[in-house]
């Protein structure tokens, strides 16, 4: 949600114990420039935010009942295992997983499009199961392993699915692509030899306004080493 992290996010990311390689880059990018400009404009808001953080530091109360943990409403430390690396972020319970990834960890590969679970642009995996990160609170992820688009390529080598997406030009504007790749890679994990119907079902929740579906189907089948069927659309 734009409302929860627009200005506070950059201030709070300093509380992160480890930051992914992508965000540590020192060269100026468009996003980095905008982020810097935001900090200047919002410095007073940040100070307010820090005071608020201290005031609400009654972060975690374990009630007399051992089966209840009360967290928040202010920021609390939450450990997230993203692509095999543990990160500790200071987040409010209302922070969605999408916001935690994008705003607090700087992993902007995951896109937020509709923010209501209706387009699947924000798809990530939890223990290899695809879910909408916009409809998941980061605080409830627990020990489940989060997979994002940043973790698909390994050791600088594109995943065969990514290679096939490039070869088949399976994108136009590209905004739905990270979600598409996450849905398709999760499919190949559980079903290495899918049929066209399987691929269609796997991306049935992923909206693409450019309508690149036939190319997504072809790319995924090729990555799986499955011969394309006659009519791919």
């Amino acid at each position, binding site marked *: *949600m734009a*409302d*929860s992290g627009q200005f506070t996010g950059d201030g709070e990311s300093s509380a992160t114990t480890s930051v992914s390689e992508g965000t540590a880059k020192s060269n100026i990018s468009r996003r980095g420039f905008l982020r810097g400009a935001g900090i200047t404009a919002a410095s007073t808001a940040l100070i307010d935010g820090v005071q608020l953080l201290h005031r609400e530091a009654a972060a975690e109360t374990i009630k007399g*009942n051992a*089966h*209840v*943990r*009360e*967290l*928040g*409403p*202010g920021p609390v430390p939450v450990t997230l295992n993203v692509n095999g690396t543990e990160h500790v972020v200071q987040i*409010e*319970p*209302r922070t*969605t997983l999408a916001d935690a990834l994008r705003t607090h960890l700087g992993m902007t590969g995951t896109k937020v499009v509709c*923010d*209501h*679970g*209706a387009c*699947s642009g924000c*798809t990530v995996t939890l223990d290899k*199961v*695809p*879910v*909408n990160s916009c*409809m*998941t*609170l980061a*605080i*409830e992820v*627990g020990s489940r392993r989060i997979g994002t688009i940043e973790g698909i390529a390994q050791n600088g080598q594109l995943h065969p699915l990514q290679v096939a997406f490039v070869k088949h030009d399976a994108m136009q504007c590209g905004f739905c692509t990270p979600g598409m790749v996450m*849905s398709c890679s999760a499919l190949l994990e559980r079903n290495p030899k899918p049929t066209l119907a399987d691929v269609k*079902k*796997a991306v*049935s*929740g*992923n909206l693409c306004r450019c309508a690149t579906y036939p190319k997504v189907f072809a790319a995924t089948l090729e990555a799986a080493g499955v011969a394309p069927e006659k009519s791919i659309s």
Partner: protein
Amino acid sequence: MNKFIFSDCTSVDAALSQMTGEAVVKAGGVDVLDRMKNGVIEPAKLVNITNIPSLRGIHETETGVRLGALVTLAELGDHPLLQSQYTVLADAAGHAATPQIRNAATLGGNLMQKVHCWYYRSADFACLRKGHDMCFAYDGLNQYHAIFDTNVCPSVAPSSTAVALSALNASVELTSAKGKRLVPVREFYIKPDDKHPTMETVIAPDELLTAVLIPKPAAGTRSAYQKYGEKSSYDWAIADAGVVLEMQGDVCRKAAIVLGAASPTPRLAVDAAALLVGKPITEETARAAGLAAMQGATPLSMNGYKVQLFPVAIYRTILLAAGKMDRDPSAAG
């Protein structure tokens, strides 16, 4: 989304102890977070029940099946026992929403989700169902609204699993500090009335929906669910039907037909089902039942098309349940 206390509970008793005042129970969070993002609700506390182990699992019992409230729609849709013996439920859950949502959304949450109406779900409209004094749908945009029971609030029941469970005559288990009670799904939802327009179910504020119990189907039972929307990949239903038939040879001995997206509650089409009883299931009887289910419809200014769509949905789903027609490729989900 407003700030809130996240009360993470690991037992039913703990969750019950937290359900006070402004607290809202959250399972998969799909409907609750959606309404919070829309600003329709601003709970001071969310009671998280997803870490309560006793609410999980699909259990076959001597009398049928017991489904924990936290079973996901994906688990329901993929379960071999449900697919073979409770097909209407596996179909309804397996075709709801998107794969991503089905992986997170729970059965309890699906049953407890609030009615569908874009005025009700917008913070900009102080509508009757939210406790104010007028309904915007009658004179507004009502193409997706109800065609039955439209006198107070013509919102529609959105839960496809409620359609299936109503057809199967299942019950929900409601647990409070005082104990447990079972309520038939057919009596769980409340039609809006002038006195209590905001009430949607019979659940009390101190009760938690903990399980769903489905009776074992009689020999010869066959069932099916189909949903029609504006697009085929995934969509909210504009018309959906759940059908359960008890067959003896070729003859139908008992039938239940339930419509979703037709009324503010899942609608049991009793007269339509009665037309099937004592006869073989044929195109003619199925068509007659579909048409009979529309008796007494009171469509609004923009949803008269539903009165034509439902008979088709019902007819095709009866034949699908009877094994006399394939799943409609143009159905949604």
